[in-house]
Every structure is written in structure tokens, then in C-alpha cells.
């Protein structure tokens, strides 16, 4: 058969192998980057959920009378909320403030804990109440 052009070889086997190698190495990096991006977004979502739960509880506790059973000294368990398949455990701790027992004020620490696969997360926020 007559060759149409002097060089119609396209690409050599060696060139192909090297190209595939570079491409796969690079693609592995991009995949890893994508994984981190998805993980980061997922964490942001969990954090948003947590902030919403704490916000909700903060407003609830602020509206209560200081003598309410939910504001007695000690630890309180607020149960758990499941959002997007993740369980968020809510609890809060009520203690006296540095103002001393003469002043009817409470120091409140609201905590939300959740487990992301095997990693434990915990967010706490502080507030104070008085009568």
C-alpha cells in the first residue's frame, strides 16, 4: 500500500503510555481535591444544623421563667434531633454566675454533639439568664 503522507503514525506507544501515566496521576489529585471539597461542604451543613439547633434552644431558654424546671442548676438533656441522617444530641448545663448567690442569675452552656462517620464533633455556646 502506498503511504498517503510521509508521517501518518499519529502517536507512538511510548507517548501514549507517558500521557496516560501523567493523566491518571493528575486525575488522582483532582479526585482527592473533590473528596475534600465534598467533606468540607458536608461539615458546613452539619455546622449549620448545629447552629440552628443551638439558636432554637437559646431562644427557648431565654423565654422561660427563671424558676422553670429547665433552668434548675445542673445538667439537662435536650434529646436528639436527626437531620439528613445525622443525629444531633442536645444538652445544656445551668450553673450560678460569678455574681454570687445573692443575684438571681444563671450561667448556661448549650452543647450539641454529633458523630460524622467515626469523628466526634461538639459545639458549645454560652448564654446567661436572669429574672
Amino acid at each position, binding site marked *: 500500500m502506498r503511504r498517503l503522507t510521509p508521517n501518518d503514525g499519529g502517536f507512538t506507544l511510548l507517548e501514549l503510555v507517558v500521557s496516560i501515566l*501523567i493523566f491518571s496521576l493528575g486525575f488522582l489529585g483532582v479526585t482527592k*481535591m473533590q473528596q475534600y471539597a465534598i467533606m468540607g461542604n458536608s461539615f458546613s451543613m452539619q455546622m*449549620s444544623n448545629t*447552629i440552628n439547633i443551638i439558636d432554637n434552644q437559646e431562644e427557648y431558654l431565654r423565654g422561660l421563667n427563671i424558676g422553670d424546671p429547665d433552668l434548675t442548676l445542673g445538667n439537662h438533656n435536650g434529646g436528639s434531633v436527626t437531620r439528613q441522617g445525622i443525629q444531633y444530641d442536645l444538652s445544656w448545663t445551668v450553673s450560678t454566675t460569678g*455574681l454570687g448567690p445573692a443575684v438571681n*442569675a444563671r450561667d448556661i452552656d448549650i452543647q450539641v454533639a454529633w458523630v460524622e462517620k467515626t469523628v466526634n464533633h461538639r459545639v458549645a455556646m454560652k448564654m446567661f439568664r436572669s429574672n
Partner: protein
Amino acid sequence: MDIRRDNSGMVMVMVLLFMLAAILIGIFMMRSTIIETKIVTNEKEHNQDFYLAESAAEIILPQFDDIVSAAAWVVDNRVNISGKMPAGSALAGANVGITLRRVGNPPVGSGASATKTTAYYYRVDATVGDQKVEMGIWKAFPKPGS
């Protein structure tokens, strides 16, 4: 060598172009994730500061008499009462002030008598971080001779 007929090396160029595209997509994805995380972290700090500022304004109420006796009352003169915050607590860094706004009759319908009492209207302001909360409170004092 004729440049138009020599295709060798083209595969490498194509692969590198594809890689560039993939890396750019990856970088923009990372960028949006980082921004998202920053937004959430900011929201958390913002909320925490707001809770503390709100708490600082509220915690004034049970020790109000103590604060009134400690300050000289001049209208529109802000008195710093940051020292009245619970020692060693998250409120210790709060900047809290109280200002007498006006003196007059107690609010109608409040149950306080306008003939027997004079009401003092105060503004409490509390600043924690970049959050500031202002709260209005009033207290009725008996008129002399009643």
C-alpha cells in the same frame, strides 16, 4: 519537517489541556468549600457574640438597685458598668453601659401610678465582639411625700 503533517506530541498537549481544565474545576470547588466553611464559622461567632450581648443586657436587671446606687444620674450620660458582669465568665470582656434617657410618668397601663411615682427610663447597651444590643428598661420610684 512540515509542521502540519507532524502530529507527534499532540497527545501530550491534549492531556495537559485536559489536566488544566480538571485542576481549574477542582480549585473552584475547593474555593467555594472554603468560603462556605468561613460563612458557617462566622455565623457561629456572630451568634455567640449576640447571645452574650443579649445576656449582658439582661443580667443588669437583678442587680439594678446596686447599679442605680453606684451611679450619679444625669440624662444622656453613659455610665460604664462593665465591672458589674460576673467575674471570670464569658461576659467579663463585655462593654456594658447604662444611660438615663428621660424622667417622666410611668407607661400607661403598666400598673404604676403617675400621681404617686416617677419613672426613670434607661437604655442599657452591651457590646461583645462585633455585636451590640440595646435594651430599654424603666423603673418607677415613689414621689416624695406620697
